C-alpha cells in the first residue's frame, strides 16, 4: 500500500514560490508586454499578436537571427573539435595535469566584460599588441571598420574564452576510461583513429552533449563581449539577437516588440536545444528499441 500524504506538497512550496517569483512572474510580465501597446502613464492597449507578426516579418530581426545562427555554428564548429583535440593531448598523470587544468580554467574565471575589454584593447591598432602587431606587419586589420576583422576578432575571443569548458568536460570523460580499454585496443591492433572512434568518442559522448548544449546556448545568447568590443558594428555587422533586443527594449524603449522578440528568441533556443539533444541521443534510443524487441 502506498500512503498518500498531501502534506508533502508543503515541502515543495518554497521551491515553487522561489521559481514563481524568480522566473514565472517576470516571464508573465514579458508576455503581458508582448500583447499590448503603451504610450506611458501606465496606459495599455490590447494589440493581440501584432507585435509577433511585426517581429517575424521584420528584416532587421531576420538579419540578426542569421548572424546569431552563423556565429553559433562557427563557434560550435571550432570549439568542439578543438576542445576534444586539446583534451586528448592533455597529460593523464603527473605534474602536467594540474598545470594544464589551471591554465584551462583561467579564461573561464575572467568576468565577461573584462574579456571584452581585454580583446578590445588587444585588437586596437594604435596601442593593442595584436592590432598594432598586425598593422606593423603591413596587414590591413581594423575590427572597427572591417566586417571580416570584427567577426574574426569576436570569434577568436570566444574560442579563447570558452574552448576550455569543452576541454574540461571532455577531459573528465576521457580520464574516466579504464586503462584496460586501451590495453585491449593495443592487443587488437587498433589504430589511433579507431581508438578515438570506438573507445574514446562513445565514452565522452554524454559530456560532449552537455558541452554542445552549453556552448550553443551561451554563444546564441552572447551579448557582453561583442557589445564591449564592437558594439554591434561596424554598421550592424555584429549585431546579434541579444544586442538587437537590448537596442529595441532599452535604446528605443519599444517594450511591446522587445517582449515579443524575447519570447521568440527564447522559443528558438528551446527548439534548437531540443534538436541537438534529440540528434545526439537518437542512436541510444534506437539501440534500446532494438533491445526491447528482442526480449
Amino acid at each position, binding site marked *: 500500500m502506498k500512503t498518500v500524504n498531501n502534506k508533502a506538497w508543503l515541502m515543495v512550496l518554497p521551491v515553487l514560490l522561489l521559481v514563481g517569483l524568480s522566473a514565472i512572474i517576470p516571464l508573465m510580465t514579458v508576455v503581458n508586454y508582448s500583447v499590448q501597446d503603451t504610450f506611458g502613464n501606465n496606459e495599455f492597449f490590447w494589440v493581440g499578436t501584432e507585435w509577433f507578426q511585426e517581429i517575424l516579418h521584420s528584416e532587421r530581426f531576420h538579419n540578426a537571427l542569421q548572424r546569431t545562427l552563423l556565429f553559433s555554428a562557427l563557434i560550435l564548429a571550432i570549439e568542439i573539435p578543438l576542445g576534444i583535440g586539446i583534451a586528448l593531448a592533455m597529460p593523464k598523470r*603527473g*605534474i602536467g595535469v594540474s598545470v594544464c587544468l589551471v591554465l584551462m580554467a583561467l579564461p573561464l574565471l575572467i568576468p565577461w566584460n573584462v574579456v571584452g575589454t581585454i580583446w578590445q584593447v588587444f585588437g586596437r591598432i594604435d596601442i593593442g599588441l595584436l592590432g598594432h602587431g598586425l598593422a606593423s606587419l603591413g596587414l590591413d586589420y581594423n575590427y572597427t571598420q572591417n566586417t571580416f576583422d570584427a567577426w574574426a576578432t569576436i570569434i577568436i575571443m570566444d574560442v579563447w574564452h570558452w574552448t576550455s569548458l569543452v576541454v574540461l568536460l571532455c577531459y573528465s570523460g576521457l580520464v574516466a576510461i*579504464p586503462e*584496460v*580499454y586501451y*590495453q*585491449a585496443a*593495443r*592487443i*587488437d*591492433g*587498433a*589504430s589511433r583513429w*579507431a581508438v578515438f572512434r*570506438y*573507445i574514446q*568518442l*562513445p*565514452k565522452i559522448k554524454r559530456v560532449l552533449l552537455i558541452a554542445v548544449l552549453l556552448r550553443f546556448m551561451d554563444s546564441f545568447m552572447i551579448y557582453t563581449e561583442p557589445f564591449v568590443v564592437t558594439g554591434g558594428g561596424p554598421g550592424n555587422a555584429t549585431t546579434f539577437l541579444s544586442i538587437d533586443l537590448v537596442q529595441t527594449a532599452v535604446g528605443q524603449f519599444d517594450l511591446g516588440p522587445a517582449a515579443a522578440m524575447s519570447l521568440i528568441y527564447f522559443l528558438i533556443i528551446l527548439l534548437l536545444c531540443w534538436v541537438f539533444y534529440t540528434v545526439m541521443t537518437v*542512436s541510444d534510443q534506437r*539501440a*534500446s528499441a*532494438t*533491445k526491447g524487441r*528482442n526480449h
Partner: protein
Amino acid sequence: MATIELQAIAHQYESGQGSASSDAAEPFAVNTLDQCWPDGGAYALLGPSGCGKTTLLNIISGLLHPTAGSVLFDGVDVTARSPEQRNIAQVFQFPVVYETLTVADNLAFPLRNRGLPRLDIDSRVASVLTMLGLQEKANLKARDLSVDDKQKISLGRGLVRTDVKAILFDEPLTVIDPHLKWQLRTELKKIHQQFQHTMIYVTHDQTEALTFADRVIVMHEGSIIQVGTPQELFEKPQHTFVGRFIGSPGMNVIPCVVEGATAIVGEHRISLHASLGSDFRNSGLQNTELGIRPEYVRLSQEQGLPAAITAIEDVGKHVVVRVMLAGHELKAILREGELIPQHPKVSFEPGKINLYENAHLIEAAE
C-alpha cells in the same frame, strides 16, 4: 603459436612520482625468473591476489616493458616489440567491448585492423559466434548485452585470430555466472585441443587452474614457487605455500623434529621411511615441518596417535574433521560412508608424508 621463453625477467613498478626517498621502498612485482614454456601447451599462472601473475602476463603480451630481462618467442627476442607486433591475443578480467559496435563487428575488429580479406573475416566471425553461442545476438549493439555476454565477446576477440603466437587469459571468468563458467572453461579446453594454441591462463582459483592447464605455475610474492602438473602440485608440493594453497582444505603443515628417519611431533613418532626412502637419514636438518594432505589422514578407533576432535564440517561430498594432535590442528577428509570415531586415533597414509626444511621440500633419494 610459439614457445615462450622468459630470460632473467624482473619487474618493478615505478613508485609514485619518483621522489628519491620512496624509490628504495618499492618492491619488485616480479623477481628475477627464467622460464620456458614449450609451444602448444596450456599453462596456468596460479597464485593469490597481488602475487605478480598479471604483471608477468602483461610482460609476455608486451603491454608492460620489464625492468630487466628479455622475452623470447620461438627463440626471437621480442622484448622491444608492441603487443600488435608480437601477435598476441589477450582476454582481460573485466569485459572490454567496443560499445557502439555490434557483437559481430566487435569480433571482426581485430581482424579488420590487420586487413584480412572480407570473406575470411566473415567465416571466422561466424565460427566464433557459434562457438560462444552468440549467433542470435550477432547484430545487437555490444553495450546492450549482459555482463556474461560482454565477457563472451572479450573472449571471442581473443579467439578470433587463428595465427596468434599465444592466447593469454587474465582471470577471464571472474565475472561469469558459475554455471556458465564451467561451460566456457570446457569450451576453452576444447579449443585448445583443436587448435593447439599456446595458452596462458592467469587465475587465483585452483580448480580453474588445475582443470584448464597441463602445467600449472604457482606464484607467490613475485616468484615462481613451483611448476608442475596438477598431480605433482598435489602430491609433491615443493614449498609449504603450494601445499597450503592447493587443495581444499590445503595440506596440513605441522612443525616436527627429525631424528634419524623418524619425525617427532610432540611425543609421537612417525616413520618417514615410506616417503623418503629406506636410507634416509637426518643430516642436521633445521626448522623441519611435516606436510600431509587431509585426504591422506586416516581416523580410526584402533591404531595411531590419539587426538581430540575440535570441529566437524560437512561440505557435502565429504566431511572435514579437525582434530588436535599434540597441540597442532590437523584436518582430515573422511571418505564417503566412513564413520567418525568416538576416540579417534590418527594415522598417515604411508608414502604420502612430505618433509620440509625451511618450507622447502626434501626430495626422497632416488
